[in-house]
């Protein structure tokens, strides 16, 4: 699993990257009450706001950590947005992207680097 400074995670299986927000991000947001995931077929670029997560207080953009085409979106989150709090780095995934540029993935932080980054916040 790789991580971004915007607190997204990416897990790669073949050329499909599963993307979500980290446990740290979920904790900072508080109780998630609404999630908007991207439509299947949409092409996203790394850094694009491609999903939205809302707590009672506020709406926050989720940025694509990597470029690709959306091949699946987690529709379960519409009825159970609290899954993002309960299992942020598992069942609370947002979307799966078919990627073409493996170097983008390799450039992201590994868990040790991400945890070191969290230590600086």
């Amino acid at each position, binding site marked *: 699993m790789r991580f971004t400074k915007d607190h997204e995670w990416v897990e790669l299986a073949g050329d499909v990257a599963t993307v979500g927000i980290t446990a740290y991000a979920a904790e900072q947001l508080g109780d998630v009450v*609404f999630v*908007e995931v991207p439509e299947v077929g949409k092409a996203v670029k790394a850094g694009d706001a491609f999903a939205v997560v809302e*707590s*009672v*207080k506020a709406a926050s953009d989720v940025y694509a950590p990597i470029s690709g085409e959306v091949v699946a979106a987690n529709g379960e989150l519409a009825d159970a947005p609290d899954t993002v709090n309960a299992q942020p780095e598992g069942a609370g995934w947002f979307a799966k992207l078919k990627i073409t540029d493996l170097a983008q993935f390799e450039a992201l932080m590994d868990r040790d680097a991400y945890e070191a980054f969290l230590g600086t916040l």
Partner: protein
Amino acid sequence: MSADLKTTPLTDAHVALGARMVEFAGYSMPVQYADGVLKEHLWTRAHAGAFDVSHMGPAYLNLIAPSGDPEADHAAVCALLEPLVSADLAGLGRGNLRYALLLNADGGIADDLMVGRPVRDPGQGTLQIVVNAGTKEDDFARIAAAAAGKATLERADDRGLIAVQGPQAAEAVEALMPGAAAMGFMQYRRMDFEGASCSVSRSGYTGEDGFEILVPRRMAPTFWDRLLADERVRPIGLGARDSLRLEAGLPLYGHDLDETVSPIEANLAFAVSKRRRKAGDLAGAARIARELAEGPPRLRVGLKVSGAPAREGAEIAGQDGAIVGRVTSGGFSPSLGHPIAMAYVPPALSAPGTRLSAIVRGKAQDAEVVPLPFVPHNYVRKA
């Protein structure tokens, strides 16, 4: 956190409780504690929540030379404040509290406030007022200027102002201040807490029964700790305070109310005195009379929103897609489990059941006009 933020007598207590502190109206304030907004909200509706609202603007308006005739002194102090506000203060009974709007010359709302009349003699010739944090400097300056030479404005915003709200608030406050539970809604008394004289109002900003208690600075942390030692009471941050007041349909100054909005547009006609309207001595009297007779150009309504929360600034469209208004407060309702919002729309589109849409991130979502409050008020009623 910027070092020049103002603190309250409870700031250290919030930090010790693990609160997430944010800037609000120049103060460092707790937006939430460890439980988070959702649980804090639901706890308040089911039990009792304690809120630090010391950033607000409590003050006393005191006649400089009271005559000693209690009714004449009450009339004299009211004559100084009444011209600035919408309410009948002269008719305010002893020991009662009233909601009022501070009006500008055009009948626009410069702030909303609570005004309390002491119950006892001596004490007549004084009014307690509580104004909003973000507007208190302007309000205090305006009130002091209007009263100059006749009454002084004694600020009390260095003290602790603590709200206790929820169905178990009365039991919790009674345990610390015997007699508090006997107060009726919108009553105002002085009560002792361990020898310290406190102002106690049976009122609040959540739609629940509860109290707002002004505690001397040195005793505020003790009072707070004693409240929280009661297992019925948990600390509640500004995040849940906002979602609670939104469900209760209560407007927030600077968001749902501003200098352009009249009391009639804001659906707050109840806060405009009939006696004052008849006398025509309200600021903006002509506008208020016209809007009452002909209807206002826009009206604050409640909306039940489908889909994503429609937050402040979201546009409201009619059936034909034309933009008809804008959300002034909106979010997710923890009690109802769906988004709600307040918005200003034309009166023709203000009837409950009217189907509108809220534009969120470019998408039109269903938004139906519903009666306010969204969640029924649970105020205590006493004979």
